[in-house]
């Protein structure tokens, strides 16, 4: 079976209106994500991670290279690729339930079926009792949970996540990471998760892709061979595979940074 997500020879330049020069953000990216795989992407700040995600989401037009999802070439946003953004990920003028059901509403799914699915995802992310609250009444962690449910409920083929837990406190982040693992087991989604936290990248993913400094290049892929159901933070500190993968990723990222700064 061919991979879910295939990126071939993808490069990106941002034009600069003022200087006339262009910013070279991505350089010749080749990668594949298999069905049901959880892949994380790490790299120094400004290396083009968000650029890659925006291209995959269809929010940013690209000219060099090709990107396909399920064999379809990407040219614009579509509900086959769900995105969880770092901030402003849910609409303030919709209640939790209506945010989660938003994708189904846009796809004109009948109300009865919609409500049933919304309920299912509210339970999945543990937001029972908050169905009719507005986002400004939620904590940061609850907002991101709602955002994850909102994207999942639309049943995308691929989930794209751009540092979704970066803006929450450390304790909440750990909880959200474990919850995401549980959700990924329950829904069997293909996930591409962008982060700059090495721990997070190693904890969540089956495979971690490390990017170089700008222009972003894929410099290495690190496999993390830990079954998904064994991933919880209590065990990780004593798990040699996790420690090995994390140290390897860290070395790659830091080597990249210092090599460039020298």
């Amino acid at each position, binding site marked *: 079976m061919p991979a879910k997500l295939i990126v071939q020879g993808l490069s990106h330049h941002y034009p600069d209106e003022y200087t006339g020069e262009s910013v070279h953000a991505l350089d010749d990216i080749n990668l594949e994500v298999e069905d049901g795989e959880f892949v994380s992407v790490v790299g120094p700040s400004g290396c083009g991670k968000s650029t890659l995600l925006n291209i995959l989401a269809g929010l940013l037009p690209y000219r060099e290279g090709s990107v396909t999802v399920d064999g379809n070439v990407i040219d614009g*946003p579509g509900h086959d690729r769900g995105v969880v953004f770092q901030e402003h990920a849910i609409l303030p003028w919709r209640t939790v339930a209506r945010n989660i059901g938003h994708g189904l509403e846009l796809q004109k799914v009948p109300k009865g079926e919609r409500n049933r699915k919304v309920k299912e995802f509210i339970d999945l992310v543990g937001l029972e009792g908050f169905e009719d609250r507005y986002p400004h009444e939620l904590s940061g962690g609850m907002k991101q949970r709602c955002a994850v449910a909102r994207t999942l409920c639309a049943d995308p083929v691929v989930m794209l996540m751009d540092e979704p837990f970066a803006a929450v406190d450390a304790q909440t982040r750990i909880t959200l990471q474990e919850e995401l693992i549980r959700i990924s087991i329950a829904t069997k989604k293909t996930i591409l998760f962008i982060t700059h936290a090495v721990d997070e990248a190693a904890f969540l993913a089956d495979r971690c892709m490390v990017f170089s400094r700008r222009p972003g290049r894929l410099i290495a892929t690190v496999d993390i061979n830990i079954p998904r159901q064994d991933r919880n933070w209590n065990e990780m500190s004593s798990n040699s595979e996790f420690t090995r993968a994390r140290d390897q990723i860290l070395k790659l990222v830091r080597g990249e940074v210092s090599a460039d700064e020298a």
Partner: protein
Amino acid sequence: MSIPRNIAMALYRRFGRQRLRRIALGSIPFIVLITLWYMNGIFHWLPPVFIPTIYSVFEAIFVLQEGCAGIVEIVALDNNCLMTTNIFSSLGRVVLAMLVGLPLGIGFGILAGMNRTVSKFLEPIGIFANSISGIAWVPLAIVWFGVGWMTTLFIMLNTIFWLMFFNAMLGVRGISRTYEQSVLTLGGSSWDVITQVYLPGAMPSIISGMRMSMGFGWRALIAAEMIGGDSGLGFMIFSSAEEYKVEEVFLGVLIISMIFLLTDRYLLMPLEKWTSNRWGLVWRPA
């Protein structure tokens, strides 16, 4: 327990302490003004030709409505019921101008907010139109449309449309792009983005545009009615002033501010409560 204390407790229970405090705070300036006005009637600091007594202003209602044969004539806008006829005439014009101006202004404002071509096209003419304040158009409007409702409508639309246009445009520009992107990636269309992101997201701005439209729209209307109208509160105030009936002028001004306060209290504030406040879009001091 004493009677005043009982009354105070009953008021607390009815309105709540916070609301009562707010109502009391807001009323103080009015109470001061009315007291001063009342005392002027006793001490005659300023003669009644400048400041009529409260009672004579009250009396003016009956002078203006003299010969009014009741509800039928009031509704028929008969000239025997001068006060109500002029009120309804002005109100009708405001409602008409709002019905036309608000949707048009908001619609074009949203378009200009999301599309640079539209904004480049409309912004300069809008700044030009805004620079000529509403009332400066009156002479020209009279030449074009004559004295009457077309002139007043033109003047008001000129004010309301551009206010709503600029407010809606800025409102849309202030919305985080992520909201729009999230709707697109859930499979939404541009129309979905307009109705589900731009319109609600620009609501705080749109409501403040409505406030300003009410304010400047009324002012423009009163001015237009004074010069280029054949009825309405502005017309009434102006003709009364020509006949030195200060109490009618006062009455007219009071009615205008009353209508103004009521629309703000019973239309705009509920709208605000149901949208921006409920969604947590605006910061409110404690």
